[in-house]
């Protein structure tokens, strides 16, 4: 019989993680978090919730695994190609006039979307004056993103998505293939700064023309979503853009009156 943690178990675990390790997951949406923890308990074959809890309290290394495993790090290149098409055709031409362009990917996971963005900027002849900040709470995925090395198996889907964004030719020129891996070119990598950043507890660190935070807010409760929206608002220049995931919206947030949505896309521009 698999272990299913109760609401009380969850509250206790989250409090321990906060008190002892300073990671605050208490404002994450419960259903998904519960599922992730049940999954971790099963994967690591804990005989009981009590033993899981003990491990978390007492083992700093295990806590690292906890953070890596309960965050959902699924991503792909040019995910939702239509979204990238709008970036390419509408957003990038608007920010192109700036002397210097700063872009922030908050919750970038293993970085595929960051390299996708760098490729678009390169194709718009803007990469030389662009700096992309790529952050995530999970140090492990930031490490992967920073290396820029991915299994070649990601190529077919990446290429297919890329074409659907209105891209021409293929992605060959942007990476070197070795055995069953690819590594993205230095030309792209040197324009990206990778760092851990926790949207729950870390503050604004710069002003950007474009912030992308896709498929991260669905894991937060409403209050935390709102708090993070304010963080983004502080970090966006006037007329800057905020891009969310396919199922996320700014509509019901405290900052919505200051933003205008780009048609039906999950992209908003800051109008005041």
């Amino acid at each position, binding site marked *: 019989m698999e272990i*299913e943690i109760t*609401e009380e178990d969850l509250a206790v675990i989250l409090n321990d993680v906060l008190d002892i390790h300073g990671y605050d997951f208490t404002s994450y*949406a*419960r*259903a*998904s978090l519960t*599922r*992730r923890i049940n999954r971790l308990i099963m994967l690591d074959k804990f005989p009981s919730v009590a033993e899981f809890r003990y491990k978390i309290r007492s083992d700093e290394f295990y806590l690292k695994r906890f953070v890596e495993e309960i965050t*959902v790090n*699924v991503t792909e290149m040019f995910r939702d190609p239509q979204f990238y098409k709008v970036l390419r055709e509408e957003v990038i031409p608007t920010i192109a006039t700036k002397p210097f362009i700063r872009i922030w990917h908050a919750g970038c996971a293993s970085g595929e979307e960051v390299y996708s963005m760098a490729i678009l900027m390169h194709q718009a002849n803007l990469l030389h004056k662009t700096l992309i900040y790529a952050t995530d709470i999970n140090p492990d995925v930031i490490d992967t993103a920073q290396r820029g090395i991915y299994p070649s198996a990601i190529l077919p889907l990446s290429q297919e998505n890329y074409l659907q964004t209105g891209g021409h030719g293929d992605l060959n020129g942007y990476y070197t293939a070795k055995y069953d891996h690819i590594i993205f070119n230095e030309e792209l990598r040197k324009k990206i700064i990778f760092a851990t950043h926790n949207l729950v507890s870390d503050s604004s660190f710069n002003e950007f023309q474009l912030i992308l935070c896709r*498929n991260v807010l*669905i*894991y937060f409760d*409403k209050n935390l979503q709102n708090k993070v929206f304010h963080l983004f608002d502080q970090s966006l220049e006037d007329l800057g853009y905020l891009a969310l*995931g*396919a*199922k*996320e*919206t700014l509509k019901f947030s405290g900052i919505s009156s200051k933003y205008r949505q780009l048609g039906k896309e999950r992209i908003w521009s800051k109008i005041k």
Partner: protein
Amino acid sequence: MEQNKITEVKSKLVIIGGSAGSLEVLLQILPHLHVDVPPIVVILHRRTDSESPLIDVLEMRTKLRVKEVEEKEPVKQGWIYVAPANYHVLFEHDQTFALDDSEKVNHSRPSIDVGFQSAAEVYRDGVTGILLSGANADGTEGFRKIQEHGGVTIAQNPETAEISYMPAQAIHHHTADRVADAEGIVAIINSL
């Protein structure tokens, strides 16, 4: 006293899973459903590039209102909710929806097992799970969770299913309480 009774009434939920060949059955079922049936959640495996036409197709066949699930929205009577492509559908204890883009389960996202299990944890014995035509074993494990929490599970009669594998798997693993054709499924939902 009277007030107390009303608040004690258990929330009910109908959750329907289907894969290849299930849309046709669904379209046979929907026109006959009464407007006072419990909230209905539909989890269909579909190609990822299809957008909302599914909503339009369903809407034309029912007196109930149809929409795609949005995260954090309350689950309400009078509605048929459709799982969006590429996200698992979960339920919070306050009976609102949650979406999750974690790994595929049974090669599927949305996964029927994931939706069924979460529904069972929140709605407990208020859940009626229905598994339609399909070529995948998704749903069998979720049926088991629904049963464990006291809910009811109904597999489409494999003989009437375009692709019998999915309901047949549930029957084979003894996780289907009942077997019914489209007409039977209509009668069961309308009686809830």
